[in-house]
């Protein structure tokens, strides 16, 4: 080994050590948990290796399949709405109109709230007895009686997605606004000279230029949505019935209510695999590295 290569490896060693400690070790532990028996409240079962038994159990577990389906709905709908709202807000803020700075701060306010606080706040606002949302909708004659949004399976998921979209669309606004600032003004001037209108400019300049930012933002948001059960935990706890049960919430309940860390580990590994496949497919489809 050359001296230069030796020093390079030596200097990289601390970073490798940190990555191993904070990324690889916990990830590997999660994988190992998924092939072990580990039920905290049943120590008599031991901690033996069980191979792929937890994964096999998952196939015949109806709650897993319901959770998987709900996760797909929860994530897809939330990301589409958040991307649309975030892009709209970013485009508006990028116009440099008077008061833009104040609006930029206001738009970010929902994101400043922790999930738990936002969840409790919306649970009160959507409350069927005291909630302001029902009151407004009644006054506008949009509903004929106070609605229990989270108690009806036909509206529970929709209401939860609306709260999630309100809470997280500023994330897209922030990233997309940064992306918009990086697009050269000359491109728009040239397009205008060529007769391109606002919609054509959006389709032919803005969106292609934002492709990388959109890809990164969508991937980050999908990861966040798949992994975080806290908002649903507060709003519905997966109910009524299993109508808002998602994989992260199921894994959480399995670990911290059933104390079955083996099965919860297997659920987490499935989520991990789904996210890896999604991220790879999404980046490949968007051809982010084409430029």
């Amino acid at each position, binding site marked *: 080994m050359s001296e230069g290569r030796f020093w390079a490896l030596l200097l990289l060693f601390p970073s490798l050590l940190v990555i191993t400690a904070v990324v690889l070790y916990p990830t590997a532990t999660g994988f190992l948990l998924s092939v072990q028996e580990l039920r905290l409240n049943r*120590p008599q079962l031991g901690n033996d290796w069980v191979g792929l038994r937890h994964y096999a159990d998952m196939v015949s577990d109806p709650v897993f399949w319901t959770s998987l389906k709900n996760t797909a709905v929860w994530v897809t709908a939330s990301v589409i709405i958040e991307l649309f709202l975030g892009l709209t807000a970013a485009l508006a803020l990028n116009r440099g109109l008077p008061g833009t700075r104040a609006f930029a701060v206001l738009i970010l306010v929902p994101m400043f709230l922790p999930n738990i606080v936002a969840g409790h706040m919306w649970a009160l606002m959507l*409350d069927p007895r005291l909630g302001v949302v029902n009151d407004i909708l009644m006054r506008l004659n949009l509903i004929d009686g*106070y609605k229990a949004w989270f108690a009806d399976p036909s509206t529970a998921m929709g209401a939860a997605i609306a709260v999630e979209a309100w809470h997280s669309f500023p994330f897209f606004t922030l990233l997309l606004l940064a992306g918009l600032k990086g697009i050269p003004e000359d491109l728009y001037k040239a397009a205008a000279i060529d007769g391109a209108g606002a919609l054509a400019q959006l389709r032919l300049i803005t969106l292609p230029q934002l492709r990388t930012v959109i890809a990164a933002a969508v991937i980050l948001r999908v990861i966040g949505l798949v992994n975080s059960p806290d908002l649903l935990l507060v709003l519905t706890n*997966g*109910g*009524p*019935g299993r109508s808002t049960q998602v994989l992260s919430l199921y894994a959480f309940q399995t670990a*911290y*209510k059933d*104390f079955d860390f083996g099965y919860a580990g297997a659920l987490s590994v499935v989520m991990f695999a789904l996210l890896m496949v999604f991220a790879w497919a999404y980046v490949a489809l968007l051809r982010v590295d084409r430029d």
Partner: protein
Amino acid sequence: MRPVMNRRTALQLGAFAGLGSLIPRWALAQDGSVSYWHTFTSQTEVAGLDRVMALFAEARPGVTVTPEAIPNTEFMTKMTSAVMADARPDVVMVASERFTDMAAMGALVDITERVNGWERRGDYDDSRFAGITDAEGRIYGVPAFSFVDWMYYRKDWFDEAGIAPPTTLEEMRQAAIALTDPSKGRYGFGLRGGPGGQNYIVNVMEAFGAPVQVGDTLSIDRDQAVEAIRWYAGLLTQDGAVPASAPNDGFRQVIEGFQTGQTAMIWHHTGSFRDIASRLEPGVQFGTLAMPAGPAARVARLGYAYHAMSSEANADAAWSWINFWGEPDAGIAFLEETGYFPASTTVAQDPRISQDPLYAPAAETLGFGSVYPLFVGYPAWVENVVLPAFQEVLIGQTSPEGAVDQMVAGLEDASR
């Protein structure tokens, strides 16, 4: 200018600091500091804890208590993580239904000898320790206060309608139907079908003759359980006598519904008496009743909050804090702030409790009430299987038969 600290002084201080870190933990523990995890979060509970801590500091100044409030819903998550990381506090609060799981995962320390040798052990009826004693007779904690299941009802509405307070589930149903008037936003009963409602489902099944646990045997009489679920869910699906929000209604919604005049009856325990009395006049607008009897049994739970040792690092100081809750002054102070019943039999005979007619149903319940089923996995089964299955009946996604089949299958898994 002369420096404040020269290099030699700095080195000496560093050496002393290094030596200090070598002092064993038990030596520091002599100052008697106790870390204490509890679930007190309401204003009245915090005021009650403050008073007990002040009394403790006065009575036993050698021990310092460092409390940490953990919301009830997050308590087991934090406790589980503490067990996994071997970072348990000295003293923890243990709710009755959590005892078996916490003991099984090694979160509690056996304090049988300390309890048996305690001079106030005679103040407690033996039954008070049943919920914190394992099958081998090991005692893990001391009951601090109790929650007695009972029913709150709108006395003024009942009087106005000329309806007698119900003593059976069927009378309760008829009263709920009679007092329901959706045009006024009034419903007969505030059914807790959301978080925390799971135990009532098990209670109704037992009242209909389908207890979950008989001795060490876990099973469900399917036919009786189906009847129970049909009756209980029917309050919404057939009678329309409960608010439509019932499938998602937890503690806050049920209490608010009663306080704001939406519901005529609710089931809860003695712990919410002060909260309800803050909005409605006791004895005039609302009254209390013992839980109504079902066709097969009258079921009400006696829930205890225990204090238990979770780590032996500061065992003597921890025991001092645990047993202080058995002192009459502490029990009465806590009762005055919160309305929570003292667990000590002696303290519970205080005239402020025994001579108050509103507390009479609780005293009656102490005669027939029972503790929650005690088997490992019970909290997870009721929360993750029983409640969602019952909710599915409420929202029409399954039948009572389908729900009971889910419960039976879940119970078989839980009992493995």
